[in-house]
């Protein structure tokens, strides 16, 4: 009995002692902790910013957890977080539910690419009708004339196209379906634009990592993933036909051309379902940070503004390495202006 009590006591004190021992000495009075949750798409970049910022300002701890854009918006409305993030912005009715108001700030942008697994075909050009048809289930073979005529000097096999789509609802799917709806009226009718559309075709895998795994293990497959993912995992990426009719490869210059082709409106909600321009890559999207318009805690306000400004300036330098598109200078200026809308008491 006594031994049992002693064992329990020593175990508990061990745990607590360990926790105390490992604490960094953040006993400063202006210690601030900010909590954010939301989209998983920008999570790696945000986490890098926050950790680097903590290194420069040890009294500020910012935590971000990816729970999905929808959950992020819910948490924003319920005021259980200090800031949220969303790939799909925030709808007007959602903004109305947030008392005190929300300020949307585009912090970075990314591209969605079509990756494929076709042995012996290192480069593939996909016209609009082809890839829209693939995801509608109309184009079913790799040597379909629509694909063949854009790739005259490539030997395309006479095998079925294995389409891979997302099993879970996600902002990435939302943006991709938005683009497909913009280029194909049939797609807009059904399945339509949604975080989880009723795809007519395709095996479903969970998450970007699931699609990557499926692509790797299924020959003749094609699927959509974030550019950062395809780049880090060295997947083969198809060149897509853009609005101007040119085939554009997925690369930073083409992404930046897309961002530059569309002007950022005053409310900072820019959508690019089909950007114009010869060099523009067709599927790009901004991603937004959702902040309240009023923060009662002066320390939190100062820390938040500091972190956001860091992200807009120093932080943009890490974007490219991680596969995100650095914001164009005019956009950065507009976002910095919008920061002034966030006030204290």
């Amino acid at each position, binding site marked *: 009995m006594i031994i049992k009590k002693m064992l329990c006591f020593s175990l508990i004190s061990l745990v607590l002692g360990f926790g105390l021992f490992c604490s960094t000495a953040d006993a400063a009075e202006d210690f601030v902790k900010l909590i954010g949750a939301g989209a998983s798409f920008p999570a790696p970049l945000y986490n890098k910013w926050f950790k680097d910022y903590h290194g420069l300002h040890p009294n500020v701890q910012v935590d971000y957890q990816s*729970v999905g854009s929808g959950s992020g918006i819910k948490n924003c409305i319920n005021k259980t977080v200090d800031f949220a993030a969303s790939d799909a912005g925030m709808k007007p009715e959602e903004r109305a539910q947030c008392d005190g108001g929300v300020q949307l700030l585009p912090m970075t942008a990314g591209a969605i690419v079509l990756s494929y697994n076709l042995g012996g075909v290192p480069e593939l050009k996909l016209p609009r009708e082809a890839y829209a048809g693939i995801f509608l289930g109309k184009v079913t073979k790799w040597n379909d004339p629509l694909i063949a005529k854009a790739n005259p000097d490539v030997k395309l096999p006479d095998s079925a196209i294995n389409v891979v789509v997302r099993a879970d609802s996600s902002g990435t799917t939302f943006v991709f379906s938005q683009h497909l709806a913009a280029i194909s009226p049939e797609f807009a009718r059904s399945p339509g634009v949604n975080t989880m559309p009723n795809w007519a075709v395709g095996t479903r895998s969970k998450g970007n990592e699931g699609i990557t795994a499926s692509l790797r293990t299924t020959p003749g497959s094609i699927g959509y993933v974030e550019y950062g993912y395809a780049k880090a995992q060295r997947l083969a990426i198809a060149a897509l036909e853009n609005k101007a009719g040119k085939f554009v490869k997925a690369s930073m210059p083409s992404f930046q051309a897309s961002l530059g082709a569309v002007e950022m409106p005053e409310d900072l909600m820019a959508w690019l379902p089909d950007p114009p321009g010869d060099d523009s890559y067709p599927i790009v999207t901004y991603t937004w940070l959702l902040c309240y318009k009023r923060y009662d805690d002066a320390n939190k306000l100062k820390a938040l503004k500091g972190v956001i400004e860091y992200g807009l300036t120093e932080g943009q330098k890490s974007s490219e390495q991680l596969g995100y598109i650095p914001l164009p200078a005019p956009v950065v200026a507009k976002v910095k202006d919008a920061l002034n809308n966030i006030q204290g008491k």
Partner: protein
Amino acid sequence: MSETVTHESPDRVTQPPGDVIDLGKLEKSLRRPRTAFNFVMSGLTSLMTIMALVPLFSVVLMLLVRGGKRLSLSVFSELPPTAFEQGGGFGNAVVGTLVMVGLAALISVPFGVLGAVFLTEVGPKTRLAKVVRMCAKVLSGFPSILAGVFAYGAVVLITGGFSAVAGGIALSILMLPTIMLTAEEAISMVPSKMREAAVGMGATQAQTVWMVLLPTAFPGLLTGVMLAVARAAGETAPLLFTALFSNYWLTSGGRIDFMQPMASLAVLIYNFSAMPFDNQVELAWAAALVLVLLVLMVNLIGQSLSRKTME
């Protein structure tokens, strides 16, 4: 082979003159159907048991191969790395899992055991007992994500933020049915003569339970608790809605704060396994290995405690 005993006619024994049955001639022969059946079933059971262990070794092997090289002491003292950062660890996640599972056990063990005592001792044949048993069984089929959603509504929205306490509560909802139902089985399997002996000596119900039933049923209780703890340690979905995650140690401004988001191994594995960066994926595997070892350690400690109470 001469068989002096046939099992069809056990009374007829042919033997040399004398009156002693030669025991050396009683043999177990595989040609007899009953023996053959016995042999086959034993072989089948052993084979199936070995097959049952294969997944465990396969999973542990996969974890070792993919994450073993990251398993070092630095992993316990460092914080999670970011995208292309090298090194890093998950010390805060280990502490977080211990704390939250500990909190969950603190809530669910007394709850479950006392509920089980009610079901077996205090009110076994009442209608309330039937309802409680049904409720516990319904809870056992509860998807883990719903426990998180419920705890979000019940704790996070009320306290206004994510916290380790909410995470502990969500986990305790998942642990409760296993503990209660296993404890009920364990206590009801104690031979009734022990119960009757205690009553015969003048023990009250409380004394019977505390001094006779619970110690005797302790191995069964421990099984239930260990199964529940093992499950709770590996659950991700409830924690995503309640305790979120943290990239820092569990202190806030120099003191331990349970009302802040807390890291956990399960959420770390969930996060990092979805990353395209090799460093983090390796850490996810190493974290899974650490989680399994942690539960094994808790199992062993529990069993050594159980042996001490039996002595």
